[in-house]
């Protein structure tokens, strides 16, 4: 039996510390990792917790991130509660195995501390790695602050391990801006946290020696399509209701309310920015300030990036006149991914909204409140004109001559 840890009601934790305590509290059986900045403290802390008797678990140092996720896949197929963490190039090296994990329907929780992908090498936060994972078949939950990084881990385990879901889940947080920023985090007791997620319920585990199974099979043309369709069916139909149910239970337990789509000041908003990560909170502050100046500004935060809550997002944006999709990743050759998602979401609806795209914050470049004020000001002009008054895609916070496309 692992020792319990007495926590204060509010601990001043950074996002990494918060995530690692969540892994401790749900008593993860196996963490296999190849540590990488800025996610290192998550697995390092877990290793410390196991070494000091606070978790009955196993920390496995592997030879690469590819090995780390492969080891997680093995441990999950064997029937354990499994988690790890990575960032950036490490995430990129994991990609091949991410598809195996989701295709094999294994509930693994991956904490992704979002970081730029080189070259040039950069340890700071942007969303390049998160975007790279978006077709991998994983559930992707997004944190805006250390409190979210803590809470969403519990949601991730609960949903991922549900027998109607059995899909792996990523919990994203912004490198440094969340992972290394200490803020007050309301804690759960070890008991309450564990009970919220519950005892791991195995399903077809390899270590059930009386019922030997084969995981990781080959299916050629005659089966592969149906198998992938079935995976997509589960991701598209089972996951959002389960996340909603987990959010509801979590609110009952903690009073903290999460939504599939976070809508702030959106009831009567004429202009809105859609974004992810810490930018959501900064944008909320700016939206409040814009409202004080008479601009009906709102913010839509993407909480669940995959599966994409298309209907819910369309609903919160339906009456808005001008929308900006903020992408913290270089789209390299097209419009930003969020711009594309929002376009796809609003196409075929009655919206008359004008949609523009801002690329910002690459490699940790600061998104200042002043930047957001200028975005809201652009949006107001678009809303008043009823058409796009700026280029479709603009770079914000970039030095040198203005860069824009379309």
């Amino acid at each position: 039996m692992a020792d319990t840890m007495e926590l204060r009601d509010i601990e001043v934790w950074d996002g990494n510390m918060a995530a690692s305590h969540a892994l401790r509290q749900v008593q993860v059986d196996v963490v296999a990792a190849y540590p990488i900045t800025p996610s290192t403290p998550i697995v390092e802390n877990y290793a410390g917790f196991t070494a000091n008797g606070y978790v009955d678990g196993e920390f496995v140092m592997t030879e690469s991130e590819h090995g780390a996720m492969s080891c997680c896949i093995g441990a999950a197929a064997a029937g354990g509660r499994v988690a790890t963490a990575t960032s950036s190039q490490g995430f990129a090296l994991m990609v091949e195995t991410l598809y195996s994990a989701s295709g094999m329907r294994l509930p693994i929780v991956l904490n992704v501390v979002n970081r730029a992908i080189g070259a040039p090498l950069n340890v700071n936060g942007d969303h390049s790695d998160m975007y790279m994972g978006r077709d991998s078949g994983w559930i992707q939950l997004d944190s805006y602050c250390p409190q979210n990084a803590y809470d969403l881990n519990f949601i991730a385990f609960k949903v991922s391990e549900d027998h109607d879901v059995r899909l792996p889940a990523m919990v994203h947080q912004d490198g440094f801006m969340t992972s290394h920023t200490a803020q007050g985090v309301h804690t759960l007791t070890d008991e309450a946290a564990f009970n919220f997620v519950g005892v791991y319920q195995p399903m077809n585990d390899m270590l059930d020696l009386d019922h030997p199974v084969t995981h990781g099979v080959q299916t050629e043309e005659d089966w592969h399509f149906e198998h992938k369709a079935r995976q997509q069916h589960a991701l598209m139909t089972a996951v959002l209701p389960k996340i909603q149910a987990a959010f509801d239970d979590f609110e009952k337990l903690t009073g903290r309310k999460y939504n599939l789509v976070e809508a702030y000041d959106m009831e009567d908003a004429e202009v809105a920015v859609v974004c992810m990560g810490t930018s959501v909170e900064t944008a909320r502050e700016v939206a409040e300030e814009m409202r004080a100046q008479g601009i009906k500004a709102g913010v839509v935060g993407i909480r669940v990036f995959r599966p994409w809550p298309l209907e819910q997002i369309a609903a919160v944006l339906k009456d808005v006149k001008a929308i900006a999709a903020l992408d913290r990743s270089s789209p390299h050759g097209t419009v930003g991914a969020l711009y594309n998602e929002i376009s796809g979401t609003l196409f075929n609806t009655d919206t008359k909204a004008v949609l523009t795209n801002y690329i910002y914050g690459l490699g940790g470049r600061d998104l200042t409140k002043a930047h957001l004020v200028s975005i809201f000001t652009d949006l107001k002009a678009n809303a008043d004109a009823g058409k796009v008054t700026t280029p479709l895609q603009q770079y914000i916070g970039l030095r040198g001559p203005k860069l824009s496309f379309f």
Partner: protein
Amino acid sequence: MEKKGWDGFEIGAMLRSFDGATRDIATTLPENRPYSVSNSFTASVADWRIEKPLFNKDYCIDCQFCWVYCPDMSIIARDKKMIGIDFDHCKGCGICVEVCPTNPKSLLMFPEQKDEETALAEWPKKEKKADTEEKED
């Protein structure tokens, strides 16, 4: 159990090796194991063969090479003794014949329709090494 079609598989394309629970599977002989339809044990590849290996126990030294090298686990051995070939799963590749070290070989390939008794009667005798080879040393 009925064979599952494309719409019958479990999530993750996980396959069950056996029907129901099993105990001490390692000490149970293959023919006594409750293999499920999704296990390849229940699928025969006998019709893949054009030639088949036949076994002549008179020359066999039970070295187990054939058992080790057969890619389809079709060499039947009991108590470390070669006793024959599993013709449901032998695909006729000839690897066992290739690796058999005896002289003459204890395994030889024959046409699929060849009857065993005739084959044994025609089994080649021990080959003498060529004179040229002996002189070379």
